[in-house]
């Protein structure tokens, strides 16, 4: 019977927090890249979109590496079974992250439209794929996947793509696109901001529907709760709250408060991840076929010594990381505006195609 306050449970929660932080932060990076083709009217707009996450995307991605490393250290069996089981899914994400990672640095290094389009596409696809795969994978985790008695998953990539997981993948796509649109409307100005807000309204509705559907579907399709687990109501309540936060974000977007809208979409992501981890507890890899095949926190956890070392290191260094991360966001807090150089020639340029590409933007 797992205790709530022991180190195993603490690390389970911390890893949940790392994933939640990752999706909160890289969620808007993904979203910005996904909505850029919809909201950017010209090259300057595309550069503004790219630069809105430019100083921070790399640091945001480290949350993933830290989650991976912490899982390896604190729950070796989880790390081993999850990533060798979800093999091709993880591989797709890795390829996507390679493509989008280099696109930031490579795009501006050669000045032809074709070169820039190539890397715009790499950034778009490299953000779209993980936005879907991560949602599908975590839906698989809460829903449970068929596991062999040794806790191995043999279902391949196809086995991960059942309907409820696909719904979860689309939900995360919509939620990240919403989160990213809201971030863009927070960071930009003028016509681009108006278009970002329009995109946010559309994605907001999609996200509300899809997140709500996924929560309901997972709850209804539910595997039986594992003995010692949190009763089915807490994860469900968290899931419902996440859906409510998405819906609330839609309303706030309409009322025009970008900051509050961003807090709401971020809160929705955090609540959704809280629901995921509460639903998995006390397992790290729940089985859909036979509860006993699942891997529990206790079975996966490292020994006490490792967890003590990790806890001390985290207690000392996490505050520093949070402090300089916060400082970075403070340094780059300004909205991005069209540079004066681009304003004269490309400004007129921007007004004309804007009508053609995006439905005429209302003035902000």
């Amino acid at each position: 019977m797992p205790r709530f306050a022991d180190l195993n449970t603490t690390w389970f929660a911390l890893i949940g927090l790392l994933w939640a932080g990752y999706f909160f932060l890289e969620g808007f990076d993904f979203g910005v890249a996904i909505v850029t083709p919809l909201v950017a009217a010209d090259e300057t707009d595309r550069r503004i979109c790219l630069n809105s996450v430019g100083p921070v995307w790399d640091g945001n991605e480290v949350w993933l590496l830290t989650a991976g490393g912490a899982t390896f250290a604190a729950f070796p069996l989880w790390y081993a079974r999850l990533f060798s089981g979800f093999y091709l899914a993880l591989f797709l994400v890795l390829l996507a992250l390679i493509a989008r990672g280099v696109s930031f640095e490579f795009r501006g290094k050669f000045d032809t439209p074709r070169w820039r389009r190539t890397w715009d596409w790499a950034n778009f696809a490299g953000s779209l794929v993980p936005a879907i795969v991560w949602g599908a994978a975590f839906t698989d985790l809460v829903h449970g996947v068929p596991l062999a008695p040794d806790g191995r998953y043999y279902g391949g990539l196809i086995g991960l793509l059942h309907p409820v997981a696909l719904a979860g993948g689309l939900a995360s796509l919509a939620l990240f696109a919403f989160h990213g649109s809201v971030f863009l409307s927070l960071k930009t100005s003028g016509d681009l901001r108006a278009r970002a807000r329009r995109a946010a309204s559309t994605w907001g509705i999609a996200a509300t529907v899809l997140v709500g559907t996924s929560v309901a579907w997972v709850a209804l399709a539910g595997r039986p709760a594992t003995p010692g687990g949190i009763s089915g109501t807490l994860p469900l309540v968290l899931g419902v709250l996440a859906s409510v936060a998405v819906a609330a974000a839609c309303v706030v977007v309409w009322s025009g408060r970008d900051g509050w809208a961003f807090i709401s979409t971020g809160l929705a992501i955090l609540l959704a991840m809280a629901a995921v981890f509460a639903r998995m507890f006390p397992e790290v890899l729940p089985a859909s076929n036979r509860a006993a095949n699942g891997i529990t926190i206790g079975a996966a956890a490292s020994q006490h010594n490792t967890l003590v070392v990790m806890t001390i290191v985290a207690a000392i260094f996490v505050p520093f990381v949070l402090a300089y991360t916060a400082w970075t966001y403070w340094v780059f807090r300004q909205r991005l505006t069209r540079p004066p150089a681009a304003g004269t020639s490309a400004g007129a340029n921007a007004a004309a195609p804007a009508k053609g590409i995006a439905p005429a933007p209302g003035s902000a």
Partner: protein
Amino acid sequence: MQLLLARWEFATVTVFHFFFVPLTIGLGFVVAVMQTLAYRRHDASWDRLSRYFGRLFLIEIAVGVVTGIVLEFQFGLNWSAYSVFVGNIFGAPLAIEALLAFFMESTFIGLWIFGRDRLSPRLHLATIWMVSLGTILSAFFILAANSWMQHPVGYKVVAGQAVLTSFWAVLGNPMLWGSFTHTVFGAFATAGALVLGISIWRAMREDDNSEHRSSFLQAGRFAAIFTFVSTLFVGMSGDVQGRLMEVYQPMKMAAAEALYKTSSGAPFSLLTIGNLKQKPVVQIRVPHLLSLIATLSWNGQVQGINNIQAAEAAKHGPGSYVPVIPLTYWSFRAMVGAGVLMILLSGWGVWLCRRKQLNRLVGNRWFRRAALWGMVLPFIANTTGWVFTEAGRQPWIVYGLMKTAKGVSSVPTADIALTLAAFVLVYVVLGGIDAWLLVRAARLDLDHADHGDETAEGSETASLVY
């Protein structure tokens, strides 16, 4: 088959990643030093150089970062049995590396790129030093993990898992301190050789007595000294590593020389033509050198492969405990050979520009050629060095505790083949683009204005760097 493919995949993604790692560690430090000189001396020349080499650094760090993400998950993907066995110990340095090093590197690189006009010069200088510190810390923790595979310490095996008994023992592993010094100075030497080659190449092409030419000569002199000092440290730490190897991994030491019979006053062969095991056709040897490397004494005894094999088989059961000898033998020679050439090349450069006669760096035709070709040397040394370290540990994945064959995941062979093929393809393309961009960036004018510089004037307008 799974094992073979998994090993090829790991070799591919690691070797490719490690083209970029030494460049990031080394160039990060070099750029930080250049920017410091520019700041302290209000020197426009160092400022130009720090921006110029900073551009090269950013291209390399981009590829280094994305290929590093793959490695964080490679253990779980293909080596899950290994991951379960070592996670208690091996996972901790990886997690700490992410928390201490990757966050620092990635956050401050963003501040450095975008903060040039937003932070005070002093604070902006501090950000590049934080990036450099991050890359060096990262090397420390990943080498802590690797050194544990070479020489496991601070553990006991409980129920099929190695569990941690002392984290200080893991951090105090003598192999770690040897390889950390070797790797970091190797990275400095890598960047140094690159900066030297590029500076000479550019200085040749600038007009005589132009400001840019003197800037590049200044960088060339700096690089020659920096490379020379770094390679000396690489040599000294390598020397220490040789003796540690004889104590902790005698088989690897014997495999480095293809020494089958235990010998006193063992020679070191520079070159062998013919069979390494039986009587070679031609062999050039330096008497007593292997004994000196391994034991620091003229007639010291170096254990031979045959004896060690017998001892290992008696200890761990029947089977071969001998690595692939031609691979270890030749990779060791390529590493040491490239390293020695780097010492000679950079020493030559230091000697040429003595008393600040910088023009002599480009005045000597042979040195110009050597400096250009010398840019290849660190990559040969880095790659063959790691091939030797890892191949020489075989058949073990954790020396003396777990064999490589036991560490692999139970993943369909087709999946590993697919991912291996995809990684090879993607990395070939990525490597080609990187090299092309690097050459383009190296050709740019020393006063080239980046994106962002032109929009920096109005402080209310955030600069668009990308």
